[in-house]
C-alpha cells in the first residue's frame, strides 16, 4: 500500500505511558462500574448502601465519560502503535472491530445511563459537588427505554471486553508474542 511506502517514520512498537494509563484506568473503572451496577440493584431497601451505591455509580460513570472523551481526543492526535508484523490481516481486522464495539458500547451506556438519571428533568450529581444538568427534555417512558439499553448495553460491552481479553491472552499464551506485553 502507498501508505507504507510513503511513510518515512519507523513503526511505533510500544504503547506510551499515557496510553497505558488511559487503558488500564478505563478498564478498572469499567469493570468496577459493571460490578457495582449489578450489586446495587440487589440491595435491600434498608441496606446502608441502598442510596450511596447508585450515587457512586452515577458519579464515577460521569467521570468516566470525561475520561473516555479525553482519551479519544488524545488518541486522535497521536499515532497508535502499528500491529505487530506477523499479525494476520483477520486478526488485525477483528481486533479493530472489537475496539470499535468497545467504544460504541461505552457510548450507548453513557447516553442511556445519563437518560435514566435525568428522566425527570433533574440533573445528575457528581459526588454531591457538582450537578450536571438534564440537557434533553424528558420523553415518554424514558427511564424504561434507557434502562433497557443501559442493561443490555452493559452485557454487550462485557462480551466485547471478553473478546478483547481473549485476543490478548491468545497472543500472549498461544502465539507467545509481545501484543499484551507492550500494553503492560
Amino acid at each position, binding site marked *: 500500500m502507498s501508505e507504507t511506502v510513503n511513510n518515512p517514520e519507523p513503526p511505533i512498537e510500544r504503547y506510551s505511558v499515557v496510553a497505558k494509563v488511559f487503558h488500564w484506568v478505563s478498564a478498572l473503572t469499567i469493570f468496577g462500574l459493571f460490578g457495582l451496577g449489578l450489586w446495587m440493584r440487589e440491595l*435491600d*431497601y*434498608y441496606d446502608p448502601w441502598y442510596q450511596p451505591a447508585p450515587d457512586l455509580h452515577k458519579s464515577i460513570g460521569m467521570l468516566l465519560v470525561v475520561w473516555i472523551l479525553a482519551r479519544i481526543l488524545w488518541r486522535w492526535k497521536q499515532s497508535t502503535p502499528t500491529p505487530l508484523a506477523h499479525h494476520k490481516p483477520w486478526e488485525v481486522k477483528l481486533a479493530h472491530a472489537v475496539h470499535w464495539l468497545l467504544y460504541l458500547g461505552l457510548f450507548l451506556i453513557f447516553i442511556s445511563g445519563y437518560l435514566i*438519571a*435525568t*428522566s425527570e428533568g433533574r440533573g445528575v450529581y457528581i459526588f454531591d459537588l457538582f450537578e450536571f444538568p438534564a440537557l434533553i427534555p424528558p420523553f415518554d*417512558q424514558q*427511564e*424504561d427505554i434507557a434502562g433497557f439499553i443501559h442493561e443490555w448495553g452493559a452485557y454487550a460491552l462485557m462480551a466485547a471486553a471478553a473478546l478483547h481479553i481473549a485476543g490478548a491472552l491468545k497472543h500472549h499464551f498461544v502465539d507467545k508474542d509481545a501484543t499484551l506485553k507492550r500494553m503492560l
Partner: protein
Amino acid sequence: MKFNLKTITAASLLALSSQLWAAENYVIDTKGMHAFVEFKIQHLGYSWLKGRFNDFSGTFSYDDKNPEKSNVKVTIKTASVDSNHGERDKHLRSDDFLDVSKYPEAKFVSTKVVSTGKGTAKIHGNLTLHGVTKEVVIDAVEVGAGKDPWGGYRRGFTGTTKFAMADFGITKNLGPASTHVEMILNIEGIRQ
C-alpha cells in the same frame, strides 16, 4: 313487519326514560382529566410518599333514589405509575412491585354499595392488582353534582381505601411502616 316512525319514536323514548329512571350513567372524565387516581405510602415511618396513575378509565352509574343500586368500574394501566422520580417509577414497574409487563392492568369493579348517610357510602368491590383479586371497601363521599357551563351534567366523588401490598402478592420489604398503601380516587363523571 313494518314499523312507522311513531312506534319507533315511542319505543325509543320509552327505552330512554326507563333507563333514566333506573340510574344515571356516567363516564369518568379522563379526556378533560378531571379525575385522579393517587396513592400514598409511608416512607420509613417519617413521611408520606405520594404518587399517581396517569392512565386509567372508568364508568359509574348513580341512582339518586336508590344509591345502593349504584356501581362503579375503574381500569388502571399500571405502567402509568408516576411518583415524580424516574428511577423509582422504573423500580415500581419492575417485578419487585407492579410487574407491569406481566400485569398491565389493575381494576376495581364494585359488587355492593352500602349507603352510610347523605352523600356517603361504602363501596364494596373486587380489586385486581398484580394478578390477585381481593375484596376491598372504598369509603366514598359525594363532592357535588350539577350542570357544567358547557351543556353537560357532572357528578364527582372522593373515594379512599387501604390495603396491605402483601395481600396482592407484592412482598418487597419496605420496612414495618410501609406495608400498607392507601389509594385515593377523585373522580368526576360526565352523565351520558
